[in-house]
């Protein structure tokens, strides 16, 4: 039994990691008061950016950062439209998804089927020798190890730094932030850009560590799941970790199930994560009172007068 479960959980962590990055990115954006529905497009585009960078330079680390920067770039478009031009956040986000997916398909065609180096699994010294836990958590690639630290930093940033506190205040009540002498516009930009960078890292993980190979449709709906997970997580990083691995688990499980040759139609198995998304959203809607939803989420800061 254990030899069946441990590889499954190991795969769970691996497929949960890109979702975790994207969820935290979207959470940061939303904590600043901006809704970014372009996660799917950003992930897809940054996966390509990361792949191309690694493919041409041979450096996986450089590719990873390039993914983040690609996310930053697309998020900036969203930020400019919503924060500076006061555009509708939902429309801009949806347009960003279409743009990101379209650009990826257009620019990525020459690379289809090509492999790249990326990140290989490497046992973490000492910790990997812990029985079971070591096998699940510490026989992964470097990006997974990084992802263990990110939620902690995320929590620390919002709870223990003045910049995080200021960022949260513009997501809650920008007028109060302005009254306190802060710069709400600048703070919202930093939330959108920071969030975009994290989402981009999630995209980079897909092409550099998850597949090592370029194909179309790599993001495969993970961006949408991330958007839903932010709600499921009540805007708290701890719950985001749980949510991301839950979805990673379902994704890994349905892949295994398909491979084992069951007679359940594959289309039903493929739909499993999305069915879970709906269940998760219903669940969080029922317990909405406990959520930390930013009060000013989705509303733009209208200039005075």
């Amino acid at each position, binding site marked *: 039994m254990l030899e069946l479960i441990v590889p499954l959980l190991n795969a769970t962590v691996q497929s949960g990691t890109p979702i975790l990055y994207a969820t935290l990115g979207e959470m940061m954006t939303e904590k600043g008061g901006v809704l970014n529905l372009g996660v799917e497009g950003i992930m897809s585009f940054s996966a390509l950016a990361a792949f191309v960078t690694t493919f041409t330079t041979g450096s996986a680390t450089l590719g990873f950062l390039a993914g983040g920067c690609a996310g930053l770039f697309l998020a900036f478009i969203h930020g400019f439209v919503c924060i500076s031009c006061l555009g509708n956040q939902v429309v801009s986000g949806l347009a960003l998804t279409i743009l990101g997916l379209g650009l990826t398909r257009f620019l990525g065609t020459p690379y289809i089927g090509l492999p790249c180096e990326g990140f290989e699994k490497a046992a973490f010294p000492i910790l990997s020798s812990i029985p079971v836990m070591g096998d699940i958590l510490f026989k992964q690639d470097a990006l997974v190890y990084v992802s263990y630290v990110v939620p902690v930093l995320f929590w620390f940033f919002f*709870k*223990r*730094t*003045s*910049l995080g*506190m*200021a960022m*949260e*205040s513009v997501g*809650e*009540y920008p*007028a*109060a*932030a302005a*009254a*306190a*002498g*802060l710069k709400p516009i600048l703070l919202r930009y930093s939330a959108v850009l920071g969030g975009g960078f994290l989402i981009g890292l999630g995209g980079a993980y897909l092409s550099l560590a998850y597949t090592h190979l370029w194909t179309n449709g790599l993001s495969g709906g993970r961006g949408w799941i991330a958007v839903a997970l932010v709600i499921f997580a009540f805007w708290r990083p701890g719950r985001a970790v749980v949510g991301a691995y839950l979805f990673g688990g379902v994704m890994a499980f349905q892949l295994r199930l398909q491979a084992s040759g069951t007679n359940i139609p594959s289309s039903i198995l493929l739909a499993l994560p999305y069915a879970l998304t709906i269940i998760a959203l219903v669940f969080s809607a029922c317990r909405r009172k406990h959520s*930390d939803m*930013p*009060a000013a989420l989705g509303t733009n800061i209208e200039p005075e007068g």
Partner: protein
Amino acid sequence: MSTCDFIRPARKPLTENEVPVVRLVGVTKRFGKVVANNNINLDLYPGRIKALLGENGAGKSTMMSMLAGRYKPDEGHIEIDGKVMDFSSSKEAINAGIGMVYQHFMLVESMTVAQNVLLGQTGGFFINPKEMEKRVGELAGRFGLDVAPGARVCDLSMGEKQRVEILKLLYRDSRILIFDEPTAVLTPEETIRLFEALWKMAEQGKSIVFISHKLEEVLALADDIAILRRGVIEGEVDPDCVESKADLACRMVGKEVILEIDRAPMESGKPVLEVRNLSGMGLNEVDFEVRQGEIVALVGVAGNGQKPLVESICGLRKPPRDTIVIGGKPWRRFFAESTWKRSLSYIPEDRLGLATLRECDMVDNILLTTRKGFAIGPWLDKKRASTETVGLVEKFDIRPGRIQALAWQLSGGNLQKAVLARELYREPVLIVAEQPTQGLDISATEEVWKRLLEVRAMAGILLVTGDLNEALQLADRIAVIYNGRILGMLPTSDKATPDKIGPLMAGIVEEAAV
């Protein structure tokens, strides 16, 4: 809020050699043609509480917004410590030590008290919640502002939220604290605690401005009182030298006649509104009637129960059973069988909100309450509505004369005329007019008055007003409301009436009874 049963510290007399920390010198502010503040001179001293007393729309908020850096004065200037200041933003005013507690709190609900106080003031990059809460707790203790620094703001009462706002100002070392109607949101106990905190702040050298229209609060709290009326400082009084609350009330509301109109007497007919022993919702045994052909004015200082009374008559709130009878029908039956014509017309104070839709044109706004008159089955006869609107625009001289004009494009006077045109088109039997001429210029006021007097032929009118002159000019009888209770029903034909109103508005029954 009728009693203030607490001990206030002894008033300090103002000595000759004290230097004002803030001086407003000849400050004038205009909004278009309206002069909101006219040649205001005001001195604020450290360690003293200055009350700014005035009716709604007297210009109190405009004046303080200039001090807080939100508006620039058109004429005159503001001095702080003898230096002429020219604020171009509220931030500059804050840096100069001026802090304002607004009626709407500027607080992040999901954050703790300490986080709110220190927002933007933390200094370093890393923050330590424990340390923040300790600092805020110390500050709160020093000024007697009891609030748990670790509590989330959304869990606090209004009074506690206000204390957080005050703490924000104190943390920024504000020397001049302005409170805009701070007691409006507070319970009586919380009000007393606020006053105690204010005295403590004054003791420590803060200069405090207390804006209010509640007489007894001002008398109980302030070291100096400045009365503001129609944008002018009417006078500065020492609370110890105030002869009576009535005197203060009269000076606040004013008695001089600005506009006169001939009121032909009219036979009064059947009662169209009977209010019987209505209590609850802040009202106390309200009992009166309005007959067809007469105007009954309801006067009083704002916030003494006018709002719940009007709202329950007009169907916005449900009064207890058998307390209100409109046009001979009990309230419930009247609103169940309500027709668009020969019914109740409400002319609300909030013209561009409750009375009209700002983004809709004249025709749609006219249709708001007359819709049933233009209905053909489920359809609306918009063509006929347009022609009728054209007729009304002409008849009431509403400018600009285009029926395509949107509500927000009309001036206050024309918008009010449009509302009046619509409501009179319904040929009502009862009209409830709430501050119908507030903010209007003289000619528009006269026009509105004329219409109201004309319409007595078919309706009874309940006129809710804060303008005594308006009440005396239009009404047959004046009901004075104080603290939810109608203290007197005075006929305007009686020569003594104008002098009786002041004391009643201040809640002094004995004097009036003599």
